[in-house]
């Protein structure tokens, strides 16, 4: 096992850590290097490449996933590039792959399609999961509130107008259906 020069003795051998998570309803258990970032775990270990890496510096939101656990029983949007995998031990996660049900798109996915809220689509998974996390906190937002809600997500194509419209439309449908996911 690799030892670090210098303070190696103090820290001892570097060991892997076991992690159990539930992603899109499926339970996983792995031994990981503690430094493995959650976004890399999701993409490279679980093979769920719908979660993107944009900036890799906590700014763009492309890596956003929903997580339940660290806050009690609430789903919250987090940036998976700013997260060590062991921190996620015992949590539940939803990625973009987990939104459609039996081949039917989630209201947010449908609204993004219908309102032309994407062009290249790179920001879209993160944008949709942020929107979903935001609607969990505020199910009936104004346009202004939506803009603030998704301010942690950058889109380089659309100019945001259609994204805001799509979220507004989806929020309405979700309220009417009384369902969130």
């Amino acid at each position, binding site marked *: 096992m*690799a030892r*670090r020069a210098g*303070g190696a003795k*103090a*820290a*001892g051998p*570097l*060991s892997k*850590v076991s992690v159990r998570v539930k992603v899109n309803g499926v339970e996983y258990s792995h031994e990981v*290097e*503690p*430094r493995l*970032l959650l976004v890399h775990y999701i993409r490279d270990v679980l093979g769920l490449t719908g979660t993107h890496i944009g900036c*890799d*510096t*906590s700014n763009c*939101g492309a890596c*956003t996933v929903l997580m339940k656990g*660290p*806050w009690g029983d609430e789903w*919250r*949007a*987090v*940036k998976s590039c*700013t*997260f*060590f995998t*062991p*921190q996620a*031990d015992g949590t539940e996660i939803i990625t973009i792959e987990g939104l459609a049900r039996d081949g039917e798109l989630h209201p947010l996915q449908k609204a993004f399609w219908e309102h032309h809220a994407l062009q290249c689509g790179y920001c879209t998974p993160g944008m949709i999961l*942020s929107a979903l*996390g*935001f609607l969990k*906190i505020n199910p009936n937002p104004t346009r202004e509130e939506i803009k*603030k*809600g*998704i*301010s*942690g*997500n950058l889109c380089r194509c659309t100019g945001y107008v259609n994204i805001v419209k799509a979220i507004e439309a989806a929020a309405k449908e979700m309220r009417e259906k009384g369902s969130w996911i």
Partner: protein
Amino acid sequence: MIPRSFQYAAPRTLPEVVKTLRKYKGDAKLLAGGHSLVPLMKLRLSNPQVIVDMRHLRPKLSYVKTDGRSVRIGALTRHAEIEHSSELRRVLPIMPTAAEWIGDMQVRNMGTIGGSLAHADPASDWPVVMLATDATMVAYSGRTRRIPAVKFFQGPFTTSLKYYEVLTEIVIPKPPPNHGWSWKKFERKAGDFATVNTAVIVIPGKGGRIERASIAVGAVHVRPYRATESERMLAGKTPTIDLLRSAAEKAAEVAEPTSDLRGSAEYKREMVKVFVRRALVEACERANLIRPQVAEVR
């Protein structure tokens, strides 16, 4: 970007956390929300050998509690929890208002108040609020030490915490219900760190006078500061727009901004005058000491 390798520990209790910190001397780092530490480690600006994750302490150290005299906030309370606390909206509205302005929703979902204070970025938001509200930081290392905010922030990214001390709680004396307050943050783009930020608390006295004002300013000095000269100018006075303007100008004299992407030193000093003035006006309005002002004056 991948950080250097490290050992990971997630102790179950506070004494175990302290034991781990003591064992590895300065080589271990606490991990709270990770929203300052993880980016630094990815850039390899910080390379701790051991990470001590406090996630198991969350049930104990995440709370907002109020009693007759004070508000107590657990160090692992996330920015979002402060933002959405209806109790704080009622008794200490400057806190949820300041929280709203930190980064973006995802950052607020993870970042903790304790992590922000211990990190002591000179441009961050909580230290400024702590100074203005006369907060006390509670540190644990086997025994408990209480550190007033004015002694806590020592310089850029430097606090008076020892490497084996864990910040566990923030205690804020409850201001009277009729206090005026204001939080102003000037940012270059949405979710950015402040170019200038300022927190003001005004306690109204008899006959339309200010009994006491506290003014804290951040992002324009090596550490956030209290504008004590300006506070003295206001104590016992009936506020007028001119008086508030002079107090704001006085507050800018203490600033020692540096020129960077967010503006030149000269520009930032001007912005201190503008934002402290606006904050003073808003706080005096809320304390019913002046009539609501038209936009140009504010």
